[in-house]
């Protein structure tokens, strides 16, 4: 498929199509190109100049908004990340990539990456399987399952901030519910200063986040499970598949697309984690629960090192972007197949 042939269509697709080659003037502008339907191409036709005008009119507002609200702030942050600036007008100093060099030496930022990785691994290996297990359980015909579904989903409805305030009380070392319960059932030895101990705080944070979000993933998985036709499961049973085999070879593969999306959402959410941690610990004690977003906030709005904070935000943006692109390219690819209109038919 010659790429220049679909370029007109590509450009018309809006910002996402920006990487595609521009229409060659020879074809797009010439009268011969008007309203010609290339027979080999199954219905694609060249646009008339009137068509271009329409596209322009309909696209401009969206492009303007996108440019103003998405592209411009990113560009500004990228520019600011090259400055040594305390936020007051006229005091900025251009220092090139110095902020990024400092970033790589910053123990806190490198620690953020490590802590982020720990949280991601825990989310994928603990939080999502837990949600999946519950979803499958609640798909069984058990008494009162609607009640359980609502109950498990309820934490997701709470705001992150409220969740954090709640758990601040639960995990309080002196009067907190967690320690009271532990000593009440004779496990007083397990009572810990959960949020004030640098070696437990990150896991305490993870528990809080899991409590908040497992219901969301559970609902996702439940919906996906319910869309699997009963016939397929029955057919497997007729063929003599055991419960585990049915799960392993029928249910799980059919849940694949949902699981892959859930992993994606979970990872992106972890990279951007802020609210709950900020309220719960402010990233402390001694950075032990700090995330990239918190480091950025602390430099930007407490130390007023706006340039350095922008560098962190750019780093965060790039990490998320690269991850999202790679994940979509390599993991979500088969889920997108056929669901997304691809220029030129097939990839």
């Amino acid at each position: 498929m010659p790429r220049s042939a679909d370029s007109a269509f590509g450009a018309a697709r809006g910002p996402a199509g920006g990487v595609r080659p521009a229409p060659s003037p020879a074809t797009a502008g010439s009268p011969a190109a008007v309203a010609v339907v290339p027979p080999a191409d199954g219905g694609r036709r060249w646009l008339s100049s009137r068509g271009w005008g329409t596209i322009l009119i309909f696209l401009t507002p969206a492009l303007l908004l996108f440019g103003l609200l998405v592209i411009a702030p990113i560009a500004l942050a990228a520019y600011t990340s090259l400055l040594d600036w305390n936020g007051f007008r006229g005091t900025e100093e251009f220092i090139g990539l110095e902020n990024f060099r400092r970033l790589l030496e910053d123990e806190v930022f490198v620690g953020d990456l490590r802590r982020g990785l720990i949280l991601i691994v825990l989310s994928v290996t603990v939080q999502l399987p837990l949600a999946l297990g519950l979803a499958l359980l609640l798909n069984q015909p058990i008494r009162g399952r609607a009640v359980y579904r609502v109950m498990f989903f309820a934490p997701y409805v709470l705001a992150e901030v409220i969740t954090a305030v709640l758990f601040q009380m639960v995990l309080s070392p002196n009067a907190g519910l967690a320690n009271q319960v532990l000593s009440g059932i004779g496990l007083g030895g397990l009572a810990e200063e959960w949020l004030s101990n640098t070696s437990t705080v990150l896991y305490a944070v993870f528990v809080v986040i899991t409590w908040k979000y497992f219901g969301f993933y559970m609902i996702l998985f439940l919906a996906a499970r319910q869309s699997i036709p009963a016939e397929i499961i029955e057919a497997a049973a007729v063929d003599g598949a055991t419960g585990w085999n049915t799960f392993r070879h029928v249910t799980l593969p059919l849940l694949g697309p949902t699981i892959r999306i859930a992993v994606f959402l979970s990872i992106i959410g972890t990279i951007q984690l802020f609210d709950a941690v900020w309220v719960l610990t402010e990233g402390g004690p001694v950075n032990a629960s700090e995330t990239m977003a918190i480091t950025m906030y602390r430099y930007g709005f407490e130390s007023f090192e706006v340039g350095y904070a922008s560098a962190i935000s750019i780093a965060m943006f790039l990490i998320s972007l690269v991850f999202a692109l790679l994940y979509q390219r390599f993991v979500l690819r088969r889920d997108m197949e056929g669901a997304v209109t691809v220029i030129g038919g097939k990839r």
Partner: protein
Amino acid sequence: MFRDHRSRRAGTPTAAFELGKGQLMTTPISRRSLLGLAGATAGAALLGACGDDKGTDSGGNATIEWWHISNTDPMLGIWQQAANDFMAKNPGVTIKITPLANEAFKSKLTTVTQSGNAPSLFSSWGGGVLAQQVDAGLLKDISADISSWVGNLAPVSLKYYQVDGKYYGLPFDSGMVGFWYNKDLFAKANITNPPATWTEFLDAVRNLKAAGVTPIALGGKDKWPTHFYWSYLALRIGGAESLEAAMRDKNFETPDLLTATQKLKELFDLQPFQKGFLAATYDKPDGQAALVGNGKAAMELMGQFAPSNQAAFSQSKSGLGDKLGFFPFPSVEGGKGKVSDIFGGGNGFAVGKDAPPKTVEFLKYLLDVEVQRKGAASGAILPVTKGAEDAIKDPNQQVVAKTVNESTAFQLYLDQAWEPKVGQQVNDSVTELLAGKATPDRVLKSINNAAKR
């Protein structure tokens, strides 16, 4: 970003809840505010284009834009009354008051100053941020206008409203940090006199622990209460000017500061704080103020606003009452500083670059002894104008005011005196020391690096 102690001191518990937040805000923020980093920058550029209205003073008519953070009574009413009286005496002058909550004030001021504008008169704590505002050309030099009457003010905290010897604002309130202690708990540990030296102090901590009492309450999550200890030790060991000198020379790796940091570690090694102090805040129901107010800890190192917060967060809502005592930070054997050198801070006002000349007259009126007496009598401020002190009614506040007036040197809170990046580093590093995550050497090195940046 700043402690706005006094102006809220006598307010409702809700207002008190916001007290003493240092530069570490604990206000919950939504994800939306994160966009602010990019957004505020973009916003500043956009806003720069508009809003260039200056308080013009053609023909005696002038509009004074006044932003303050005393948004609860009694100061809200006292300021309003002062503005009304001034307008009555000065026909043609309009004072437009914008009372704001602490956090709202900071974000609103940041937005406006980033566009190169400033209100005529606005809340300030002097020090590093004032200096940054001067650097950005946002403030007006009022030295000549106030020279005839600035002598009426107690000299103690004036220097923090000066940059290169010129005044850009004035304080209306000043206070200090010291130990607030529970007399009953001290008696229980057989401590008859409040400790006067560092050795006695460490002994007192040991005795309290032996008596089964938590010696000291600390809000480690907020960090700024922690830096009080380091600052005071530095002042006692290195002398009154040692901290400002270190900042000026950008050299914190001095023998005196090292000794101070090591002494602090001695204290931390005794484990004098309550369980879970690293996650505790100053102003929450299970925080520092509440522990002392409920009699669960024997003392805290805190500013003049401590008693009112102890009361506000205690279960009885009245705190310790006459069981509460005050003693200054003890002297350190062999140190160069005096017990009368104090550390702390208060509130003031800065004058914007485009302020009409009447603004300074109005500032003078706000610092008039009668207006100051009203504030002092309400319990909301510790006055700076000479002759207003005797209006203070609370005995604890009288002690603080007396100590402030008899002080030999004054050091402002470091996270206000210095530019935020250094002040924050001090808070962070001292907290690391406290958590056993940094050695004294490393603490000083980190602060040094921040100062040089």
